């Protein structure tokens, strides 16, 4: 009899939170609870305590949050009661205390606790979790990025669990994200300020930015990533592509070396499609010291890097391209990594988990509320309109431009932009990455990448104003060649495809030359450092450690948002951001890199490629031995806005410093094809 009464009690669904402020995601859940469940009543339980110490949220006052929630619910005409019941309860305010209080005051109702699929994992660590599970039904709404089903099953398998139900209907999230997108699309400069739909805004579409966006979205945070150009446009798309084992840093920077080897092993596991585990040799030439090799071997072992000294003859047998004059060699687990694929794989996974990736959106300013950063003022370059986004935390991952972004909030970071120039050779000269076993210098790394070989690099300090116009110079090319030939003499006879340069986003510590500055990870909590809440800067580091940088940043973001979800990026595989040829066998557009029409269509439809430069980054069209001369026209006709002129000039940037030999013949062919015919000269 008692159980019948129990069953007949009307259900009251309770959504707890600080609602700082309430946003579309919350409203979508409330709407779902009202329309698709057997709840007789839905209540929003606003927590009086801001989860942000010293008021990091947008609305510091609990009453303001309560009012904002009431207004939003009235506006949406939802039959939801917004309650301040917790305001009167004594501290500490554990959920179980509120539930007990409600049951005592309203014994005729059956209270149901509603929580997100990302939060359920931590439920067992809550105060008196057993009691909650025993006495109250729990409804779990899915959150992108987490599969709550196994946890729900486990909790239900406990003897004393009342019942945990997972909403599996997809509608919840369709509603949410659709409406967010609609709101975004209609975002006009004069639109009234509306509640933030994002937990985090990441500035910068390089490897660090997409890494942070992925980590945050895997942990269930709603992320927007903004990038003023295309993804990979900065240093992430202009580097060696060396999958460091850490050996290069072992002697001078043990910490970086340890980070590298750890991340090296993780990347091989989570992103095998971006990595070529070809191993590397550190060679000692007659002019180098074998004492350094001893020091090097010792340092590698200390850092946990498997380093094996080889006899010169063994080394030549392993890598016939190596300089035969070598007097020593050490084999290490270096490799190569395709930075473009890695960036797009991270971006794609972030998107799959609900992140909005806004490329070609320039940050014109940071929105401030006093000293607090509360959002970004954007200019949508392609849509030619201003936009505004708000979030309680803004992550500055702008790489070389981090200093400029921080300055918009009044924080000062000194960057030491440092140009490095590299050369691409027309075929894969070496099968293993080759390094000089000596203190780092110019042109002492030779990395095989897919069908080419890349030699680098130089080091030249730039003024911030010089970053945008940085180009490889013929003088740097000459330096690279004369030094690089010592690694593999046949480079002198190998056709050079192009030169390119990137700008290392070094963060200043002490003044000295670019190589002595620590390449360590720098994470600034501007609230602590400068008294500017809401802004976090992640800088320094290197492509190899992007995942760790993202983890550290996201940990800090989560602490600030009181969002207790652990990092999973070290175990969760990255998706492939390209369509492989062999699945289709379609028509080839680019013979050099074997790119089909299907891949190009995929890049246009799914990866946001609009012009030829975008397409190159996503598919390698034009990166191969013809440097776009034969494929650019074919690909151009498939693209909405090809910008052939921009593409040709971008490719030329790399050809002009190496214009001799075969490159000169190609240069002449390019001039004939792309300059003379009138129809190719876009205005």
């Amino acid at each position, binding site marked *: 009899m008692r159980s019948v009464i129990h069953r007949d009690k009307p259900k009251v669904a309770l959504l707890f939170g600080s609602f700082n402020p309430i946003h579309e995601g919350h409203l979508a859940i409330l709407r779902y609870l009202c329309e698709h469940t057997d709840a007789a009543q839905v209540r929003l339980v606003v927590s009086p305590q801001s989860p942000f110490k010293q008021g990091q949220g947008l609305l510091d006052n609990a009453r303001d949050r309560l009012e904002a929630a009431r207004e939003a619910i009235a506006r949406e005409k939802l039959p939801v009661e917004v309650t301040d019941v917790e305001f009167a309860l004594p501290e500490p305010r554990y959920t179980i205390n509120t539930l007990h209080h409600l049951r005592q005051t309203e014994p005729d109702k059956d209270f149901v606790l509603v929580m997100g699929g990302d939060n359920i994992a931590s439920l067992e660590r809550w105060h008196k979790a057993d009691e909650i599970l025993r006495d109250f039904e729990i409804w779990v709404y899915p959150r992108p990025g987490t599969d709550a089903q196994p946890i729900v099953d486990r909790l239900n398998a406990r003897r004393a669990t009342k019942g945990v139900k997972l909403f599996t209907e997809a509608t919840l999230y369709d509603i949410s994200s659709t409406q967010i997108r609609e709101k975004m699309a209609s975002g006009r400069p004069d639109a009234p300020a509306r509640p933030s739909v994002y937990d985090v805004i990441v500035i910068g579409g390089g490897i660090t930015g997409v890494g942070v966006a992925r980590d945050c979205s895997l942990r269930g945070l709603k992320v927007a990533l903004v990038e003023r150009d295309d993804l990979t446009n900065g240093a992430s798309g202009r580097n060696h592509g060396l999958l460091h084992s850490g050996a290069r840093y072992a002697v001078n920077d043990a910490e970086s070396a340890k980070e590298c080897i750890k991340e090296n092993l993780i990347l091989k596991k989570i992103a095998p499609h971006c990595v070529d585990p070809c191993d590397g040799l550190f060679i000692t030439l007659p002019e180098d010291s074998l004492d350094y090799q001893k020091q090097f071997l010792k340092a590698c072992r200390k850092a946990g890097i498997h380093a094996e000294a080889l006899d010169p003859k063994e080394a030549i047998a392993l890598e016939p391209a190596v300089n035969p004059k070598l007097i020593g060699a050490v084999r290490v687990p270096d490799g190569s990594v395709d930075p473009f694929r890695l960036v797009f794989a991270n971006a794609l996974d972030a998107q799959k988990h609900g992140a909005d990736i806004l490329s070609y959106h320039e940050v014109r300013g940071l929105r401030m509320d006093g000293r607090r950063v509360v959002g970004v003022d954007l200019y949508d370059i392609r849509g030619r309109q201003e936009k505004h986004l708000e979030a309680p935390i803004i992550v500055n991952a702008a790489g070389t431009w981090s200093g400029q972004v921080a300055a918009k909030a009044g924080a000062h970071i000194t960057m030491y932009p440092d140009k490095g120039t590299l050369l691409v050779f027309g075929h894969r000269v070496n099968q293993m990455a080759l390094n000089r076993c000596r203190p780092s210098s110019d042109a002492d790394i030779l990395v095989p990448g897919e069908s080419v070989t890349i030699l680098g690099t130089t080091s030249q300090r730039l003024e911030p104003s010089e970053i945008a116009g940085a180009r490889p110079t013929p003088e740097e090319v000459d330096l690279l*060649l004369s030094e690089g030939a010592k690694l593999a003499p046949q480079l002198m006879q190998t056709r050079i495809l192009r030169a390119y340069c990137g700008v290392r986003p070094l963060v200043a510590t002490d003044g000295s030359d670019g190589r002595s500055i620590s390449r360590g990870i720098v994470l600034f909590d501007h609230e602590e450092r400068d008294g500017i809440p809401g802004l976090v800067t992640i800088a320094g580091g290197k492509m190899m450690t992007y995942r760790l940088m993202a983890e550290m940043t996201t940990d800090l973001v989560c602490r600030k948002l009181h969002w207790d979800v652990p990092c999973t990026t070290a175990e969760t595989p990255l998706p492939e951001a390209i369509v492989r040829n062999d699945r289709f066998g379609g028509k080839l557009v680019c013979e050099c890199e074997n790119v089909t029409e299907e891949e190009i269509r995929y890049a246009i439809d799914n990866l946001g490629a609009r012009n030829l430069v975008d397409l190159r980054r996503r598919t390698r069209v034009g990166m191969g031995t013809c440097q776009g001369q034969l494929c650019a026209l074919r690909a151009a006709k498939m693209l909405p806005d090809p910008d052939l*002129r921009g593409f*040709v000039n971008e490719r*030329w940037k790399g050809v002009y410093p190496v214009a001799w*030999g075969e490159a000169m013949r190609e240069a002449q062919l390019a001039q004939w094809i792309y300059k003379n015919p009138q129809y190719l000269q876009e205005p």
Partner: protein
Amino acid sequence: MKFDAIIIGGGHSGLPRATELQRSGRRCLVVCAGESPRRFVEPVWSQKEARRAFEALGGTFLMGDSVVRGLFTDHRLMAVQTANHGRTRFEAPLFYLATGSFFSGGLVATHDAILEPVFGLDVDYVGGHADWVSPDFYADQPFMRFGVRVDEAGHPFLNGQPIENLYAIGSVVSRL
């Protein structure tokens, strides 16, 4: 072997000149590096037609051969030898160089210099490789005007001396 004129290069400068000379009654030899895989964009079909017309007039066309040596006496080119014919001397009172520019191999850019590879003729160019190409693709490109220096009559120079019976024609000629 003796000819009235020898034309080095069978492209769109060399072949028409050879045909013209042949029509005027001179026995001509054309040496053409031809259809190696490197020359993939050449207008092969129109070249075949032009060759047929030249041969119909009695001209001799060596396809797939190239001049490897010139024999000079007193600023005159006396004879040439080719890759396929060993020591055979092809002699003539009149020679034309029509080997084209960089793309066809009539000019070669090394890291430090621009060379004319058949005879080592004097080449007009400026500066080092940094000066040869403009950073803006659509700007004027100096290298497109490099070529062998010729006097007013069209004779190229070897070590500063014009070769009296050799003419350079087509895109191998300097336009600086």
